[in-house]
């Protein structure tokens, strides 16, 4: 990824995000765009872990849940300022991720999938069961978000906040991929012995990217809690983890543009299917299977190849 083309891509995305509101007819679409942007940030973090570093995480929604519930509980029940609650959630996530990273990331393939899955499910069960704190299956209301006394309210303000966050995340992720750490991470995926031979500590790199992507998920979980105003254990469920994974994979692994596309497509698609109960789930499944068979590398990388870029 040459620096020049990265700058162009970033600029174009920025322009696109700025123009988008002119095309959105009503609040419903604003909402979708905001959710898509939030998902895109999480998906970028997850893609760094899965697509670039070659790991797998089937429990990432658990980290989203930690952030969401931290924000919900600390602001609504204990009156903390939202930023502090968000930071607390991120710290808790970082702590947990650090704790489990080394033992779990020693594993590969199905074992790693299973371990991350287990982690996610345990977290989601905690959120469901500890109802005095979390409100149980019925969930918990969240106070509105405010930054240094300035409240963020209304779909326009939320859209601009999330679009800006997305742009910053794209910039930071692009920087990471092109850096020594980024090269080490990518080398671990396909040429681990070579990486080791030049001094890359596999355990440390894998743990770092795991923690980074977990913290990203947590921060976005916190924001989502404030945006929606309500948190239920669904936010940390296995199905949510699968949705996130789908967005990574369908959009394109190891592709930042793919993460945005995947998040956008798979945030909008289910909304068009809510008429039929169960159709949403089945459609997701079909998209997953079909994409993996026909375009194993995902939408954006496959399109790039076909268009000969």
């Amino acid at each position, binding site marked *: 990824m040459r620096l020049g083309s990265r700058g162009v891509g970033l600029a174009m995305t920025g322009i696109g995000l700025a123009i988008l509101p002119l095309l959105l007819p009503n609040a419903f679409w604003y909402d979708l765009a905001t959710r898509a942007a939030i998902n895109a940030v999480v998906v970028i973090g997850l893609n760094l872990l899965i697509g670039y570093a070659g790991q797998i995480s089937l429990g990432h929604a658990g980290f989203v849940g930690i952030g969401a519930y931290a924000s919900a509980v600390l602001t609504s029940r204990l009156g903390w300022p939202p930023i502090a609650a968000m930071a607390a959630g991120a710290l808790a996530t970082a702590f947990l991720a650090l704790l489990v990273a080394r033992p779990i990331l020693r594993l590969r393939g199905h074992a790693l999938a299973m371990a991350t899955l287990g982690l996610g499910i345990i977290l989601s069960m905690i959120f469901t069961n500890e109802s005095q704190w979390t409100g149980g299956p019925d969930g918990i209301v969240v106070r509105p978000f405010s930054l240094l006394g300035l409240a963020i309210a209304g779909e326009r303000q939320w859209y601009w906040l999330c679009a800006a966050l997305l742009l910053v995340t794209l910039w930071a992720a692009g920087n990471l991929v092109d*850096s*020594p*750490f980024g*090269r080490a991470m990518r*080398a671990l995926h396909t040429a681990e012995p070579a990486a*080791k031979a030049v*001094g890359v*500590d596999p355990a440390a790199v894998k743990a*770092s990217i795991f923690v980074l992507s977990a913290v990203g998920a947590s921060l976005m979980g916190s924001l989502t809690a404030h945006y929606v105003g309500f948190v239920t254990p669904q936010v940390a469920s296995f199905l949510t983890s699968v949705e996130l994974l789908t967005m990574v994979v369908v959009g394109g692994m190891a592709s930042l543009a793919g993460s945005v596309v995947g998040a956008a497509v798979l945030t909008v698609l289910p909304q068009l299917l809510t008429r039929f109960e169960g159709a949403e789930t089945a459609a997701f499944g079909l998209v997953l299977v079909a994409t993996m068979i026909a375009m194993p590398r995902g939408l954006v990388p496959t399109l790039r190849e076909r268009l000969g870029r």
Partner: protein
Amino acid sequence: MTAADALLEVRSLTRRFAGVCAVDGVSFSVGRGQVHAVIGPNGAGKTTLFNLITGFDSPTVGEVRFEGHAVSGLPPHRLAGLGIGRTFQTPQICAELSALENVMLGAHLRLRRNPVAAMLRLGGIVQRDRALREKAAELLAFVGIGTSGDVPGRGMAYGDLKRLEIARALAAEPRLLCLDEPAAGLNPRETRDLGELIRGIADSGVTVMLVEHDMRLVMSLSQHIIVLNYGRKIAEGAPDEVNRDAEVLSAYLGVHG
């Protein structure tokens, strides 16, 4: 050569795998600034020995000392930090990175590796990366594939991949470079070019150790040869000594006597 001069010392190195003794009590010293070779018939334990020296395996008994420090059992990335580099029999190239980026990977330990600093472009990372790009391009030229900078790893020819591996290993500025069958799969012309490259590397002050099957290459390049058979060292010395050693001949030609 006294122990103090030795860059690498291998003492009674043994590696047992569930009943098979792949390396059996091997001892030798490797002095600075020369080309050393480890040869022997297939299955003699050369690759295992290499893996033991470069940290990809741990000895059952015995030790490896590098520049006086005990290093046996340390993982490869620690040995890289101490100055040992290696290439692999089957080129381990990251297909997603360009040739240039693969070489830049080699300089990993010389750069700022903190991911947060990278994301925020702090600490001069970008400038150092630019400088590294130039150095990497020089290395590519040095090994003879100077025009392939932007080609992604997956698009390169086999012979070029082997050179790329060497360029990457050199980017780490090792004091001991271990080459694992560098001539495997190369035709005679490529092998000759490889020999010149290795001589150039040794001339620049890097001690080279290679495992190789190509006898002509070994004899023409090395000052010091170690011969293994069935995991044991059966001969050691300068090329013409080893060439005439009876045991070596019988190991290779199956002549018993």
